[in-house]
């Protein structure tokens, strides 16, 4: 089997960061905040976060904050929960959460909670369990989880549980690995995992592994490296990850690398991008691949970062 070309991936990510003006980057301009999270978390997992100037990143992040307290994908764009969580996570990586006005960010997040406990992504109102996860993850990192109605939030998430043990985006929505990660992560953070039928969901999730070793997101669909994160982290949180073939998944992820130019793609021989590079490396972290730092499956941040936030000091 091949090996992880960590240094090439670091080079690739740094080059994307530099390439601000080309066509592709301009298209992706509005989600630069997410790109920052994917790229920088990957660098940290590979032990190379110090290759980036933290001050530059932190000051750019703060220019993306809106008066409502939420963060936009880039300067001049509108705020949304999707970018707010990435901003908070990146500040967590650099141990710079103290630059935030915690009340302001908390106020923005809680303003998006609805009567039934659900969350919309922004003031325009589309509701999705992904946003419930983001809100819970974000406020928990800021240690302000009690500022939202946690009980109602959990109740709403549980109302999205399906016959196969999985979760959808709204009540009645079909089970999908991405939504499952969001719901399981939210339930983990709020101490509510006992509401999940771990055997039923665990089996549905482990059946996402197809013959090639990769994971799909739902039955009969094609595998994609991003599911290595969403399915694997869900399985890890409910303690059923031993139900998959770890070696085969490692091989699949390694086969999705561009070993010459760096970066990871969704499937072997496709074009690479930062998104799949992050999910591939994060997946390898959960599989305990040597040389990759441990990642927390619920917060999607390195374990030492989560420990630093909750214990006030790094664990050895």
């Amino acid at each position: 089997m091949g090996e992880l070309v960590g240094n090439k991936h670091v080079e690739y990510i740094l080059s994307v960061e530099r390439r601000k003006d080309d066509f592709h980057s301009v298209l992706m301009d509005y989600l630069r905040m997410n790109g920052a999270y994917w790229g920088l978390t990957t660098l940290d997992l590979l032990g190379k976060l110090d290759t980036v100037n933290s001050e530059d990143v932190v000051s750019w992040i703060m220019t993306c904050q809106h008066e409502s307290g939420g963060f936009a994908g880039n300067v001049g764009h509108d705020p949304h929960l999707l970018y707010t969580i990435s901003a908070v996570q990146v500040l967590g990586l650099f141990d710079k959460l103290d630059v935030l006005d915690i009340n302001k960010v908390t106020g923005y997040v809680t303003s998006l909670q609805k009567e039934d406990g659900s969350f919309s992504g922004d003031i325009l109102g589309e509701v999705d369990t992904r946003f419930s996860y983001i809100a819970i993850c974000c406020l928990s990192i800021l240690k302000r989880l009690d500022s939202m109605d946690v009980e109602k939030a959990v109740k709403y998430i549980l109302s999205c549980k399906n016959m196969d043990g999985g979760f959808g985006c709204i009540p009645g929505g079909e089970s999908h690995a991405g939504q499952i990660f969001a719901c399981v992560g939210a339930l983990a953070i709020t101490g509510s995992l006992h509401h999940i039928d771990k055997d039923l969901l665990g089996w549905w999730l482990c059946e996402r592994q197809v013959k090639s070793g990769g994971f799909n997101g739902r039955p009969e669909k094609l595998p994609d490296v991003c599911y290595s994160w969403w399915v694997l982290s869900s399985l890890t949180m409910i303690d059923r990850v031993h139900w998959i073939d770890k070696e085969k998944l490692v091989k699949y992820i390694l086969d999705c690398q561009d070993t010459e130019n760096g970066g990871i793609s969704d499937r072997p021989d496709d074009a690479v991008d930062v998104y799949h590079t992050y999910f591939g490396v994060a997946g390898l972290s959960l599989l305990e691949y040597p040389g990759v730092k441990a990642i927390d499956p619920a917060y999607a941040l390195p374990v030492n970062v989560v420990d630093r936030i909750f214990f006030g000091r790094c664990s050895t």
Partner: protein
Amino acid sequence: MASSKMGVEQRFVAALLGRSTEDELQYTEDLIGNNFSNYSAWHNRSMLLSEILKRKEQESSSQDIISKEYEFVLNALYTDPDDQSGWFYHLWLLDQTFKVKAPLLVSSWPVPGSELIVSGNVSPGDHPLTSFSEFTVALERFPVVLYFNQTVEGVNSSTVTIQCTFVQNEDVTWKPLSPQNSRASKVWVGYLDLSGVDHHSSAPHTIEVKLGHHQGINSSNGLQLSVPFDLSFTVSVKSLETQSSKDEKVAWEEDKFYACETHLQVAIPSLCYDGIAVENTYKPTTSDWQIETITEEISQIRNLLAISDSKIGKITLARLLMAHDAMSSPYATKTVHAEEVLGLYSELMKLDPSHSQYYKDERSLVLLQQLLSSRGMLLRHCFYYGGITSSSTHGPICLRLNNQSISRMGSFDKLLWVQMLDLSDNELHSIEGLEAMQLLHWLNLGRNKLRSFTALGPLRCLKSLKVLNISHNEIGLHSIDTTRYSCSASPLSHNGEIIWNGDEFSPENADVTNYWEAFMVFKSLELTQLDIVGNAVANEKFKSFLLKVLPKLQFLDGQNLH
């Protein structure tokens, strides 16, 4: 992501247009007819069926609908047995067929009609010796354990009443046994304080436990426990001749265990669940329709498997056979199909090696059911520990399940009476469910695959545990902790128990931060003996940390500490 919302939008539009649920059902049928592999269509069908079934007031019309659905899905399965979508729907139908309705009590400790001898003044290291005709428990507090068929809430001194001479019902506090600090649980315990009893009188006291007479115990979907259960048993409290073991450690060696079936035959019945009194208490609750349906489905799936070696077909058959066995009276020999099911899982491990750990876990659960299925089978695994010191007394009874390739524990409803358990030389990576074993005093988990202290979370609920062996596991070997969010006592837990009072994480207490998982588990236990050698975490620094957390420890890794 778009198509996952399609079904919901479709129903919204249908509602607007005034289309009936039945029309919608026809629509999904058309979609499925075009392409059986349409997971979305099957999912929507299950949502629609749920709604229809909710509206049906008569049992028989629900049954008709479900029976028709079986025909419909079998048609799809015969057409393409390798496609997953139909199989998932079939499994959902099975769930609807055997949906556990009202909460019921399935097991308890003590078992109705048992006659127990309790030694209430035993210090932790002592091994009480008793005559062969008696079952003895050495306890500081007497637990009454209730095991239900599903997670329930509302067990308290109003919904469960205890009548006995030495305790007031109002003084009994009922707690759910859940490492997750949940208000609801499948297993509940209430403690009786023995200090008010005269130890010099060995007269038996009768204790009556009644539940189901008052509303209040209910499941998460609001169904009440309405079948009354009345259990009574007797307890004699006496000071026993004890083998003082201040200098004796427990050694889990072969020559320490004595089989003695004739004596065990007498002692075990009061623990065992195949007496007539027990039969009357725990009633079976399956209907003729359920039995017919499952028999029919078993036959259909067998036919299917004869023409196609479908993996999910085998999994479904295994589950059907186990469900069939579960339907017979709880205490009859329930494992008619166990051998066949064990065979199916062995085949599946070869057919689908990627998922072999899943099949292994399922296989372990079936194996345990088989091992505990009758008194005869059970006795083969029971031994007296420590031998026989005189012609009429003995040490505790140990249930030995070592070396059985068990990767997962189960059947806890049958294990509530166990005080000494040997699970060494297996493949356990989790002890989920073990919190139900409230009498556990001596436990051997050596040479398994436990990977973290958080995996030992269930032990925090075992207040009687004194001797623990977790040697030769994998604690400290892994960078990823798969039970990090499973225990409410974790400092990461949002609504968990508060055992951290803030000082713990100060710089002077670096060890607590570094070893917080171990601190969390051991702080709540008063162990006298611990074996941890053979785990990556067990270096000198860690061991000296342990000595601070476990002040009552007498033996660590075989070494006498005094």
